[in-house]
């Protein structure tokens, strides 16, 4: 791994490579931050409905089902994939030591992507969602997503192709796979759901296949790429084992892509059984990533000023393990039958998409942004505060859901307990989790404000002198009568 960039202090002027990243990455990160805030607002609205079912129920646009899926999709496509792309571009440009080609192309791609997300979220709230989990965006929004990703992704591949540092790092493997993976699964799913629609339960099979490949494989590919890149860089030491990273990569691709079918699915029994075996095998992916990164981290000290990003990354690594283990529990025949259909599954998704992926991305963005802008963050103490708030918020959402989910599942398995009693027994857990949603909203706002203010400050250092020069009052003496 090339370590030259790691010693670059946050305050020094960005080099040619970082400058080439500035436009595209600011575009991607600011929009990602916007969607992150939007997702947490929507999730909070959905959560508050458990305090009073009548809350905002008069408006069709704000009914629980629509707000809930809008929140999930804003988080996935608005934040996760977008921030993932930004971080991927940075890693590719930095490790390849070559500037991004055609920055304007990336900006156009990102604009198309965001148009797709915006139209999709509005469509869901307007009742035009497809009804498929994780694929609620209507076809036209998905088409925009696909095109946007194609533009950004092919630009990223061009950047990899034209790299000056020829050796590929582990992060590269994960990112190359991710750049192909997403358009494949997105087009595969939408072609089979809307263009040549499959019949009956095959729709659910396609949705599960896509869901497993997006929420587990794609998020893990990009999240692990960021972990494998930034943890060694922040600690200023090489990755513990390249071979082990290769093992993680292969097992993630070959086992992870066969997961995602719920144990309770009403399909021929071999399908959930095979999926359960493969999900169990992802344990080796979890363990190898954990061992590799723990060994890299143990005894290391972060380079000055990088404590907050490292905390984000390590927290994300921990949650990757926890979410992966919960996923295995959900897929197993006996345990899965108890925990499916409960809040335990929701907790798993929360840990996977927020606890692991978003936290890793937030850490990476906090690391990248000062180097990108050539100025410190607008608020330098904010990242650490953000970390503690986000960590507490994430656990405050996920733990009550997980515990409440197990209790709910055990009661659902006992037919003598009336359903209404079970529903009400989950309420206290859900109400605690609303507090976590509030915390997450606060830290997402902090994050978005920090990025926005840093960007405006950087922009003002460029434009303010020019602006002042233009608008400076000409001394009266020089004005000719």
């Amino acid at each position, binding site marked *: 791994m090339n370590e030259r960039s790691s010693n670059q202090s946050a305050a020094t002027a960005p080099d040619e490579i970082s400058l080439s990243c500035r436009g595209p990455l600011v575009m991607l990160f600011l929009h990602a931050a916007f969607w992150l805030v939007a997702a947490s607002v929507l999730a909070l609205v959905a959560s508050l*409905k458990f305090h009073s*079912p*009548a809350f905002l*129920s*008069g*408006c069709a646009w704000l*009914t*629980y*089902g*629509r707000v*809930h*899926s809008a929140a999930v999709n804003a988080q996935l496509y608005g934040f996760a994939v977008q921030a993932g792309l930004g971080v991927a571009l940075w890693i590719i440009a930095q490790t390849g030591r070559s500037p991004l080609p055609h920055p304007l192309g990336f900006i156009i791609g990102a604009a198309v992507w965001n148009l797709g997300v915006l139209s999709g979220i509005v469509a*869901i709230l307007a*009742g035009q*969602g497809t*009804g498929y*989990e994780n694929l609620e965006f209507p076809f036209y929004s998905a088409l925009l997503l696909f095109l946007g990703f194609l533009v950004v992704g092919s630009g990223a591949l061009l950047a990899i*192709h034209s790299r000056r540092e*020829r*050796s*590929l790092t582990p992060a590269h*493997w994960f990112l*190359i*796979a991710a750049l*192909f*993976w997403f358009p*494949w*699964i997105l087009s*595969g799913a939408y072609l*089979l759901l809307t263009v040549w*629609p*499959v*019949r*009956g*339960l*095959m*729709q659910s*099979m*396609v949705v*599960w*296949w896509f869901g497993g490949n997006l929420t587990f494989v794609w998020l893990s590919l990009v999240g692990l790429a960021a972990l494998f890149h930034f943890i060694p860089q922040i600690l200023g030491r090489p990755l513990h084992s390249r071979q082990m990273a*290769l093992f993680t990569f292969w097992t993630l*691709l070959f086992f992870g*892509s*066969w997961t995602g079918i*719920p144990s*309770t*699915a*009403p399909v*021929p029994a071999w*399908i959930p059984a095979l*999926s359960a075996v493969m999900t169990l095998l992802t344990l080796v992916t979890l363990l190898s990533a954990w061992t590799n990164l723990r060994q890299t981290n143990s005894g290391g000290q972060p380079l000055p000023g990088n404590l907050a990003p490292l905390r984000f990354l390590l927290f994300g690594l921990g949650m990757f393990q926890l979410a992966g283990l919960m996923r295995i529990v959900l897929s197993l025949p006996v345990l899965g*039958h108890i925990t499916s*259909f*409960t809040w335990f599954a929701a907790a798993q998704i929360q840990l996977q998409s927020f606890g692991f992926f978003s936290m890793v991305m937030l850490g990476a963005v906090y690391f990248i942004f000062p180097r990108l802008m050539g100025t410190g963050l607008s608020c330098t103490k904010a990242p650490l505060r953000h970390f503690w708030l986000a960590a507490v918020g994430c656990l405050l959402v996920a733990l009550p859901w997980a515990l409440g989910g197990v209790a709910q599942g055990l009661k*659902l398995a006992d*037919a003598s307990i009336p359903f*209404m009693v079970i*529903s*009400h027994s989950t309420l206290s857990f859900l109400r605690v989790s609303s507090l976590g949603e509030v915390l997450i909203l606060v830290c997402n706002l902090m994050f978005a404000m920090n990025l926005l203010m840093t960007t405006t400050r950087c922009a003002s250092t460029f434009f303010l002198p020019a602006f002042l020069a233009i608008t400076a009052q000409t001394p009266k003496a020089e004005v000719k009568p």
Partner: protein
Amino acid sequence: MNYGPLVFLTAFVALSASWFGFVLTPQIQIGRLTESTNTLNTAELYPKARPGQAAQGLQVYRANGCAACHTQQTVQEGTSIDVYLLEVGTNAAAVATALVNANVGFTRIDDPGFFLNLPKNILPGTTIEAAKRAFKGAQSAGAKAQIRINPQGPDIARHWGVRGSVAADYLFDQPVMLGSQRVGPDLSNVGARLPDVNWHLLHLYAPQQVVKGSLMPPHRFLFNVSKAGQHPSPDALQVPPEVAPAPGYEVVPKPEALALAAYLVSLNSSTPVFETPMTLASSATSTNSPAK
């Protein structure tokens, strides 16, 4: 791995393998199902497409994200084989001896109460061999017995369905919304449980009035509250006074509400099919509680 194309190839092979396994193979197995007589009652075609209004209601169900809180899949954990004694005949002592000799777990039957309260499940949750021996024994002694196969599981015990859901149940739905969370009850057979359209309309308008303590948000945007005028609408909903609009106004369901209610009433997958063997005679009300 220092070559980009090699990474590409690995990813391509991995994803195509999973596509063949989880999309193509199931498509060959369950994607080409048709309406058939694959039912225990061979005179019946199953599945049937939903009637027009119910098919429109599916789209209302989709648009409002009802699947965020409701699943549509009854999970079956297994089957239970039971032997029911229907009539004891004239010689109770001979039946008792035959059952003991059938070697199905009875050492002696001398309690006369054993033959009371018929029909009764005398061998709950047994094996098919033991059930056959007990059945033959009872028949030979002049009693009438029946072997019943009952789907098992908490969902079925909750009367959310008489059997587990199978692929055929969803054949004509586009989209299929199985749901993944049970914030509310499972709806795969709600039409069999609650067949009254007006119940559903009132429940959509004011859930807490119909189901005490319900967590479901009211869906009033599916209804128009308008002045009753000279000719009140024949569709107007009879609402309880707690949620009634101002005097002179009526609550009229919009077409979406009527479609959604028609869809909910159409949700019924109780037709017995071969994938989930069950005895036809046993209705949803038959219990599997152990013999007293």
